[in-house]
């Protein structure tokens, strides 16, 4: 954006809410702030109506503060716990229907490209596992297959949290949940593998056990989506409420899962790697390997 939209008519300054004035004065628009600067700038999201200790909220805060160009980013959410956060977000964002987020993002991205052919307008989808891999899976996959230049982020809490803890496609095999009273009878969907097959050029799988990594991966994903093609990030965000654990124990659970079955994974095509190295976002792999050997 031109940043002109943040300018306030001087005559109205006295009636604008203080936190809006703060966003204009100390917000991250056009300043290239990242998650490591948290605490040093006015954040685009500072409040949420989610449960205490919500890992999704943790991830959300990191993601938003890591956007490479928040002033030129629009976000598409979907129905679920995460959609409760969006009304408090200081970026243009969309709640449309449950599951149609990647379809809406497709239209948005192409529409913005037509209107602003010479600008980068980043379109980022942020939705839960139900929206991404169950009710909207066809649209998730097709947006990837079509090569839409958007970033898709899944908050994977392995259940439907907002409706009361039902089994989702991302629930682990055998787990008892609402609507799976005798345990889930099929495997957790390997969405990262689908993503690679469907043409995502950058895929990362990680958890709230390492929030710094979340920020780095989002940056990588958005930069790559801007230039090359679809990117996907899957974040394990355990739901202490539905798992019936103490909020304070949720990060410990995430750390345990990293050891068990949710280790950090990052995949990128050679083209994506080249781009990220050129932009300074990552170090070249070979160089790194050689450095390790030496």
């Amino acid at each position: 954006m031109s940043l002109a939209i943040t300018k306030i008519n001087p005559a109205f300054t006295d009636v604008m809410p203080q936190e809006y004035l703060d966003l204009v004065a100390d917000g991250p628009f056009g300043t290239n702030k990242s998650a490591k600067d948290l605490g040093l700038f006015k954040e685009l999201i500072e409040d949420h109506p989610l449960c205490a200790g919500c890992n999704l909220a943790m991830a959300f805060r990191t993601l938003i503060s890591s956007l490479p160009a928040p002033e030129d980013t629009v976000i598409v959410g979907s129905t679920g716990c995460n959609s409760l956060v969006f009304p408090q977000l200081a970026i243009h964002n969309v709640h449309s229907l449950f599951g149609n987020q990647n379809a809406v993002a497709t239209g948005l991205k192409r529409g913005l490209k037509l209107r602003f052919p010479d600008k980068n307008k980043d379109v980022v989808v942020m939705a839960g596992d139900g929206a991404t891999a169950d009710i909207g899976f066809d649209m998730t996959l097709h947006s990837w297959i079509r090569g839409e230049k958007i970033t898709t982020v899944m908050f994977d809490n392995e259940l439907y949290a907002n409706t009361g803890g039902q089994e989702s496609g991302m629930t682990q095999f055998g787990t008892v949940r609402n609507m799976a009273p005798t345990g889930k009878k099929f495997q957790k969907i390997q969405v990262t593998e689908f993503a690679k097959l469907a043409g995502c050029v950058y895929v990362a799988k990680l958890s709230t056990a390492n929030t710094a990594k979340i920020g780095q991966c989002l940056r990588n994903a958005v930069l790559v989506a801007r230039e090359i093609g679809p990117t996907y990030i899957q974040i394990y965000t355990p739901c202490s409420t539905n798992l019936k654990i103490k909020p304070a124990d949720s990060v410990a659970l995430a750390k345990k899962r990293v050891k068990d079955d949710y280790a950090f994974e990052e995949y990128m095509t050679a083209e994506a790697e080249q781009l990220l190295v050129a932009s300074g976002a990552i170090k070249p792999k070979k160089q790194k390997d050689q450095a390790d050997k030496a």
Partner: protein
Amino acid sequence: MSAKNLKEVSTEYMLFKAEREEQFMTGSEAVREAIRRSNIDMSIVYPITPQSESSHLVGDLYAEGYVKEYLRGENEFAVMSEVAGGAMAGIRMFTATCGPGTLRAFENFPMWSGARLPIVIAFMTRAINAPLSIQPDNIEMSMLLDTGMIMLHAENAQEFYDMLLMSFSVAERTSVHIPVGVFVDGFFVTHTRQKVKVVIEDVKLQGYDPAMSPTPTIDMETPPFRYMKDPFVMKSNYVSYAAHASWQQECMASIERARPYIKALMGDFIERENPGAPIQIVASGTAVSQSRAAIKMAESEGIEVGLVKIKSIRPFPAEEVKKALATAQKIIVPEFNRVGWLAREVASVIPNNDRMVKGPRVFGGMTMPPDVIVKAIKGDTRCGV
């Protein structure tokens, strides 16, 4: 003629002044000719009979440069969401579907209206399962009556062409800014070749200006930057109830506010034949054409029959219909669907419903022989309910 050298003109100029030529074409081709002049930015489509051909033709316009962006989506639900995304980004969108596709996409339509998206969509109606039928039948219109979109029902390819051309201007008014559905009875209009007067001047409609939208465009260029589409109040309290209720009322009101804009471009909401006749037929869409044929047949037998053709279903011309039928002794409502939705609409706005013959109704694909309407005129009780 080249897509690049078209001069932008007002909708009024396009409809009333631009040079036209009579051509022999199908309703699907009439869609192509209307969209050629409509200056749309993007169209996203999905195949379903009998809509597909018109969407192929919009694809041809894309290949020729008349449409900037075009793609086939993965299913109708996704397509209507993709179309919504484009409209949210501030560009002019057009799409089309019918029957089962309409129902597959259904959740999107009230969302379009609530999100104040000025999308123009053509419905080329078709029967709905089960059992499977790919034939003409407009039952989907009864299901769309309360989705919050403007609904225009064209009788033939000429009216289809003109209604499509006018719809963008109506949909995009700041005080309206809701979707417009232009309906025709599938096959009867889409697949019938007939004479259509189309604009041949090198002109196109003025483009869409997103700054005229009553709600901010999702582009991070339009203030305020703290903006969510759509108003979204998930907390259960009286403020959120009031927010939803008042927003929905506003959407309904925007349909009503469209009346003068529709009238200026389309003319009166109803058209009449033989207004003084004691027997009046009320119809919309292809049923109007069948009724016109029936009126001629009755006339040759010495029976005078009148016609009230309804062109706009939403907003519904309640006052006009009530006035037109004030002195009618018998009112016949022929329809191409099982449920008789137009009869319900008419019954809800006129007194003395015992004057009505709610039929004949043909559904599942067949044409309605004018002879059957003549039977209803003559009092055959099998021709109505």
